[in-house]
């Protein structure tokens, strides 16, 4: 690739030193030269380019910068070289400062403050979003013809039917784990038979709906956020508004309806499959026949446990769909935002589901459904 870039400094008594460049001054050769040029500690009066070969804008920049810093002249520059030096000289904006980065402590404090404000803001925002949803439900009651059946039914399938496989597998395994761990512990007191109580009450009252909610948040809440977020980026949501279609009505309501209606069904399905898993383990390990298991379940699980589960399920569905749609609607700017908003949707949904579950647990015990 031709002669490597180099330079030599020649003392010339009082008038100062002459710096002679040689070789090709281009981007492939410049890295070393830049480091050596920075080490020059004597004044340079003249830059001689007579021996220099091919020069590109990076080479021109190096020469220009040296001439600028040393306030010296450049001589014997080729025609194309002088054109480039002139061009980069006119484009010299290197005096602008890179953006200021504050120190670690203030960045951490700022981060905490920002996170707090974001959390508060998104709580308020969700509340407002819920208000918009309620308003659009009310206006739909007045004009029921505007309800989007096709979209809603499609989301029934996406949220409910497509989730049957994974929710079923998860619930079956959870049922087995509860029964197995319960049996091991209860055996120490010779009370293995209570494993049935454990499986029945735990899955129906708590775990069936809770695990389903977590799965739906991961599957559908994230999908809602990503779908709506991408539609925001591509201005589809804005296009809808200009046509006079309310995005809440067209995008949010079908998803919320689907999640609210599908969650109890999925939760019920999950309870049943988890009990089948428990019954299966009791049959194999504890030799309790399935028929006995079913009879025992009927005896030990109060019907209020089932009510508790079924009351919680639609509320969880509402929270998951709201968080997903709300975060999706908040997407602005770039593709990264879609990712971070999707994450936020899932985290927020699961967090709120668990907090609310704790409230429900205390509440239902207090009202005597313990």
């Amino acid at each position, binding site marked *: 690739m031709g002669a490597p870039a180099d330079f030599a400094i020649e003392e010339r008594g009082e008038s100062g030193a002459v710096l002679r460049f040689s070789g090709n001054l281009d981007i492939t050769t410049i*890295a070393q030269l*830049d480091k050596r040029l920075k080490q020059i500690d004597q004044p340079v009066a003249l830059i001689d380019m007579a021996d220099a070969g*091919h020069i590109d*804008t*990076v080479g021109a920049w190096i020469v220009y*910068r040296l001439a600028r810093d040393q306030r010296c002249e450049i001589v014997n520059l080729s025609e*194309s070289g002088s054109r480039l030096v002139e061009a980069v000289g006119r484009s010299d*904006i*290197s005096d602008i400062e890179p953006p200021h980065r504050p120190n670690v402590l203030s960045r951490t404090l700022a981060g905490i403050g920002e996170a707090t404000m974001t959390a508060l803001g998104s709580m308020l925002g969700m509340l407002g979003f819920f208000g918009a949803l309620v308003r659009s439900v009310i206006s739909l009651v007045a004009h029921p013809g505007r309800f989007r059946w096709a979209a809603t039914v499609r989301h029934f399938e996406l949220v409910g039917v497509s989730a049957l496989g994974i929710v079923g597998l998860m619930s079956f395994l959870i049922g087995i784990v509860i029964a197995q761990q319960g049996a091991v512990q209860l055996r120490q007191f010779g009370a293995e038979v209570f494993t049935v109580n454990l499986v029945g009450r735990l899955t129906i009252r708590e775990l069936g709906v809770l695990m389903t909610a977590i799965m739906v948040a991961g599957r559908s809440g994230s999908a809602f956020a990503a779908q709506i977020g991408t539609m925001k980026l591509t201005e589809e949501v804005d296009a809808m508004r200009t046509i006079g279609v309310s995005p809440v009505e067209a995008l949010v309501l079908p998803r919320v309806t689907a999640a609210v209606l599908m969650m109890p069904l999925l939760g019920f399905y999950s309870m049943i499959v988890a009990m089948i898993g428990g019954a299966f383990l009791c049959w194999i390990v504890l030799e309790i026949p399935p028929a006995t298991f079913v009879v025992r379940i009927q005896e030990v699980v109060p019907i209020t446990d089932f009510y508790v589960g079924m009351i919680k399920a639609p509320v969880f569905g509402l929270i998951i769909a709201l968080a997903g749609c709300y975060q999706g609607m908040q997407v602005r700017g770039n593709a990264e935002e879609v990712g971070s908003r999707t994450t936020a949707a899932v985290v927020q949904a699961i967090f709120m589901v668990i907090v609310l579950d704790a409230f429900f647990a205390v509440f239902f015990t207090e009202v005597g459904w313990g």
Partner: protein
Amino acid sequence: MSAAREKECDVAIRISGLTNSFGEQVVHEDLSLDVRHGEILGVVGGSGTGKSVLMRSIIGLQRPDAGRIEVLGESILDGEEEDVSIRSRWGVLFQGGALFSTLTVAENVMVPLAEFYPHIDRSLRREIALYKIALSGLPEDAADKYPSELSGGMKKRAGLARALALDPDVLFLDEPTAGLDPIGAARFDALTRELQRTLGLTVFLITHDLDTLHEICDRVAVLADRKVIAIGTIPELLATDHPWIQEYFNGPRGRAAAVSHADEERKKTRLPASSKSRGFLR
């Protein structure tokens, strides 16, 4: 070095026998095209004639079914690994700018520098990025902004700055003036011409903009019927009797662009000083 290379091969990009198809649909069939060193070649054609596919084939994003493509004397289709060196000698401006949205403009320009020349100091990389940004006609405060904070025209200029990051020999522009207002488009044309002259670039320019064709293109290649049906200066193209070419350049828009171009030329010949005294880029 570059002078020797120019003598060695007058052709910067040589395409022969190119065939591209997507399933049943054949986009190019036995297409041949030469781009000369140091020219601005405009590529035109109706929608769906494969202008972008042609560009993507040349820069190696689309593997053709058959054909040979040479850029600066190097074949880009044989050998998967060897095409790395040639990649540092071209710059590409995609239609929407295709800036990395999580990096600032300056960081965007620094990406190719860091990728190909990791030995260059970070401070020098930033200096290089800054003068490239200014060369591309962006205001200095744009350097530390994110792409989402820029207007469409500024995004294109930022994309151009990134395309120029490695001092390429060949520049590919995919509809650079699409979506710009007429003033912005005219400025972008002037910038392209200015940079091409200053940096000695070969420019492969896909466009629908008739003004761009008249103002800055040395030659124009017309894509139709899966081939390059004609290539030459606009007067040469007008001399052919292909119906699409006639309709394209003699339609109402084509005539308007030709008239305004002729006016410009007259002004330039009358007042040669004015065009020179204009600022470098603005």
